[in-house]
């Protein structure tokens, strides 16, 4: 009985905590935490070209950079051949806060040498664009053609240069 009470109390606290709306301050904290880590990779990004995605992914993990979501894209429009993924480091609500405040948001665009297999596209769709461990396996052997860091010059910066 005591245990149930504790669990209920804990769950209630979790619900109350998770009910707190994310704010502009939360976004700025997120940006200022993640972006310096991303910036630290940019000077050496070319060393990952021609390498399997898993090596780059390990570099992200080593720097405590957590992927949250992704979208896939084509190299050129219009096309149905997907070679590009945009990696996101926060959820959709945070991106909305950035968008409504006209803040930059950090993403990494990775172009793969080969077309992304339809199996991976299906997995992304099934996972509602959320990153998960099954995607790590699926992407691991895809070779990287190039990497672009977008939106990392300051959340209010007018400098839109890609790194």
């Amino acid at each position, binding site marked *: 009985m005591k245990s149930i009470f504790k669990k209920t109390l804990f769950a209630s606290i979790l619900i109350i905590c998770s*009910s707190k*709306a994310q704010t502009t301050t939360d976004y700025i904290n997120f940006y200022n935490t993640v972006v310096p880590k991303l910036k630290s990779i940019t000077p050496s990004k070319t060393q990952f070209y021609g390498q399997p995605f898993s090596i780059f992914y390990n570099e992200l993990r080593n720097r405590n950079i957590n992927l949250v*979501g992704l979208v896939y894209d084509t190299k*050129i429009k*219009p096309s*149905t051949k997907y070679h590009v993924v945009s990696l996101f480091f926060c959820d959709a*609500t945070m*991106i909305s806060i950035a968008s409504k405040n006209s803040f930059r948001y950090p993403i990494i665009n990775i172009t793969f040498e080969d077309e992304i297999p339809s199996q991976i596209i299906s997995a992304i769709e099934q996972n509602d664009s959320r990153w998960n461990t099954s995607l790590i396996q699926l992407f691991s052997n895809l070779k990287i053609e190039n990497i672009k860091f977008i939106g990392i010059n300051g959340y209010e910066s007018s400098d839109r240069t890609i790194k």
Partner: protein
Amino acid sequence: MKRKIILKLLLLLAFSVTLYSCVHDEINSSANPSNSEYTSKSLWKEDEVYIRNVMKIYLEHETEIKKVSGIPYWDYATTLESYDESFLMVPIVEDNKVTSVLQVPRHGTKVYFYYTNYKNHLDFFQNLIFSEYKKVLPTEKSSAATGKGMKCTRTFYSVWMPNNEGNYNTGGGDGHWNTYSIVKCRQMIDECMGAVNEYGECQGGGGSNSGGGYGYPGGGGNNPEPPKVDPCQKAKIPMTQANATLKNSASQQKMDAVLKSKIQNANEFGVALGTAANGQIEITPPKEGTSSSVSPPIDQLSNPNSVFATAHSHAGAFGAPSGGDMFSLLERMIMYPNMRYSYVYGIANGVSEIYALVINDRALAADFLNQYPRSQNYDTVTHDFKEGSNLYEDFTAMRYMYGFDSSGNTSGESYDKNAIAMAHILEKLNSGVSIAKADVTGNLKTINASIQTITKPNGTIEEKPTVSKCP
């Protein structure tokens, strides 16, 4: 002697106490503006009737409305150049610091109170209240950077910042002017600190009674609620005309049938539509382009200046217009006085599909192009929005958000994510352009896409993409 000294000290003390009391009274009177007196200390002409009425409502219901600590500085309330008893902002101050802003819009006969904490709003009021030397700069009215077609107003002022303490030779001494601004857009309600209702509207203390909001005396008097811009209404006439063109027998034969037959071709094909001397629609023969672009042969029309539409096929790809297609329409609109539609044919899951970009307001569309020119927002290699650009940011944000949660699509249609993202930026930035897709009956239906703040059943607040189509 000793008694005299004590007496003098007592007199000094009494004088000090008196002086302190006067100063304190003065500070209280200026630092406690939540009393019933209101004297505008704003730098601008304000809608004082609205401010006084809202202040009265607030004072009557303060215990229900108040959600944050601090005091509303009503003397610094601003209606940001609206004079129809429709909107105000008032700074909330605690320990000489603006900690939040109370925004009060009126919808019909009710006013709603909600708190926000945008950094630029806080900075704006902080300096407005506590800086000594200020000057007003011209207000900027923007038709872009808006949500749901509402125009925004940006109000500026500058504050003199001396480089050395004590040097307050305004504008002439050692120092500089810092400029602050604030934008009023009714839709910017995303930093709500209170509850958000099922319609995505922030209730923030405004509304537990009578279904939300507080009764406004006179319901706004002679100033009824400003009409909301309905995206469907806005696009209705142009979309009806675009449909009429699509369904025209000449178009069906020389555009629709021709381009549908090209959608599995290795290259794109394009046609131009103009008005012949006899008033009938004139359509050029199709011109073949490359695998990813084609320039419709406007110069083949008997009168190129009569061109009002182009149409092209995508080579084995979806029909959703690309960023390049959007810029081409806008630039042709500038070049040709009648240009207003761009039809795009494609294929999805083996079935042909038609999308269209339709100009619904030429002036807005020209403003949009001016603000977001191709040179800054287009990538000539990808034929799409340039990575990192303004338009790319909003476009990609919507693609991601819709990927996260597509349950807000009530259209019954299966749209390409790129088309939804395109609809979002066109609507959000008040572009004067609509995007539509032909439904099963072949009729073009405008796509609406926006981001709403909603409260989920478990109480969590989420930003949710909503997608619908016009009737």
